[in-house]
């Protein structure tokens, strides 16, 4: 594998100062920036090269590493992976001495340009970078850059635990009843989105916080990631009201069923309909308890609250003359019995 000469990319000599490098970079960036050349793939590619070259050459440490290693970066990488601890320069010296040709000789010698050439064709597979924001998912940096310098933040700063992050999730009462799985997309420091699946247990309440350990912001320098807290908000339901683990719902019941008793069918959150016996003399607003038909308990889902069915008496309307007479007769008898009726 060969690499680009970053100095040539920026059009600066190898002795250029960082100020000259920055100046050259900005001049080129203004010409080729994707925001200035929307839809121009060639400009985008060129800008990637320029940015990559700048990333390496503007940082004195990276530049030194680049100057020292030349084409031996892969060997050095394998060496580090195998547990080697030598510095890049020691490594370069050792390998070039073994091969019978020094890096300096190579640079000056026949056809050996440590910085020239092509890169791997799968550029998109290189490590991500915040240039994702401008270029989308395709990484602007070649494998060379990413494999040598790796996680720039992680290698240059002190280890520190990542921050905690909060995710707000809105659920229906049905989802809270059954439990569900929600997908959360969180972006890591390099700008790469990752999807996390958070399992929401049955019986979750409005305002519940579910902790997903180690799923928050990434830590620095190998430190642990922060936690992700999923904060659940449960949407109000048009039919059911929640009180702790109990549910309440209204059922419209005709006057005669309330007076004489009967059976009505009540929908539940499970999606089924339960037959509920209405006892005689049921009053308006009276609640009938259906044991175990409420929300599952968050920590013990095998237990569940109760469902209270509140009776809403529906009076007949549009009575004809005969019916009104019958009702009046009933009212007379009701008063005659000395029982207390409603206001008339």
């Amino acid at each position, binding site marked *: 594998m060969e690499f680009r000469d970053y100095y040539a990319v920026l059009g600066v000599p190898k002795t250029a100062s960082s100020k000259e490098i920055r100046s050259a970079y900005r001049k080129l*960036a203004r010409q080729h*920036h994707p925001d200035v050349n929307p839809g121009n793939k060639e400009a985008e590619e060129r800008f990637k090269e320029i940015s990559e070259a700048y990333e390496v050459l503007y940082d004195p440490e990276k530049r030194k590493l680049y100057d020292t290693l030349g084409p031996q970066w892969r060997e050095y990488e394998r060496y580090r992976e195998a547990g080697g601890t030598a510095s890049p320069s020691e490594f370069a010296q050792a390998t070039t001495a073994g091969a019978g040709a020094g890096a300096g000789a190579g640079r000056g010698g026949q056809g050996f340009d440590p910085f020239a050439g092509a890169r791997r064709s799968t550029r998109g597979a290189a490590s991500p970078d915040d240039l994702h*924001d401008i270029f989308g998912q395709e990484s602007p940096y070649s494998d060379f850059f990413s494999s040598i310098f790796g996680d720039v933040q992680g290698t240059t700063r002190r280890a520190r635990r990542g921050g905690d992050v*909060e995710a*707000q*999730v809105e659920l229906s009462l049905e989802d809270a009843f059954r439990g569900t799985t929600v997908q959360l*997309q969180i*972006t890591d420091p390099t700008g790469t989105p990752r999807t996390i699946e958070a399992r929401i247990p049955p019986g979750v309440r409005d305002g519940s916080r579910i902790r997903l350990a180690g799923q928050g*912001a990434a830590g620095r320098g190998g430190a642990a990631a*922060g936690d992700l807290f999923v904060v659940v908000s449960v949407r109000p339901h048009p039919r059911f009201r929640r009180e702790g683990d109990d549910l309440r719902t209204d059922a419209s019941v005709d006057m005669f069923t309330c007076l004489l008793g009967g059976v009505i069918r009540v929908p539940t959150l499970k999606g089924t309909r339960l037959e509920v016996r209405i006892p005689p003399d049921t009053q308006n607003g009276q609640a009938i308890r259906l044991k175990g038909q409420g929300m599952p308990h968050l920590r013990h889902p095998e237990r569940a609250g109760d469902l209270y069915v509140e009776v809403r008496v529906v009076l007949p309307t549009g009575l004809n003359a005969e019916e009104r007479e019958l009702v009046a007769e009933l009212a007379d008898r009701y008063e005659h019995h000395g029982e207390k009726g409603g206001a008339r």
Partner: protein
Amino acid sequence: MGLILYRVEVVTDILDIPRVQLRRYEQAGLVVPSGAPEKPRGRARYTEEDLRRIRRIRRLQRDLGLNLAGLQVVMRLLDQVDELQRRVVRQ
């Protein structure tokens, strides 16, 4: 899909940006945190979209050497381009 919210200290940590710089962006109207605060009278938090915006601002500032005034112009234009693209997609 849930809405991810970041407190300001997490944003500065993730993006490796000084808090004072983030304040400057906010004062210049370049970014306004759009997430609900943690407490009723607390500071608004940042969404993923806000983070993407800050990354873009940082990149533009570094790549083109834009100052805050330049950033305001470019970001406004980019917002308009984004909005037009959304409209085209919708049609």
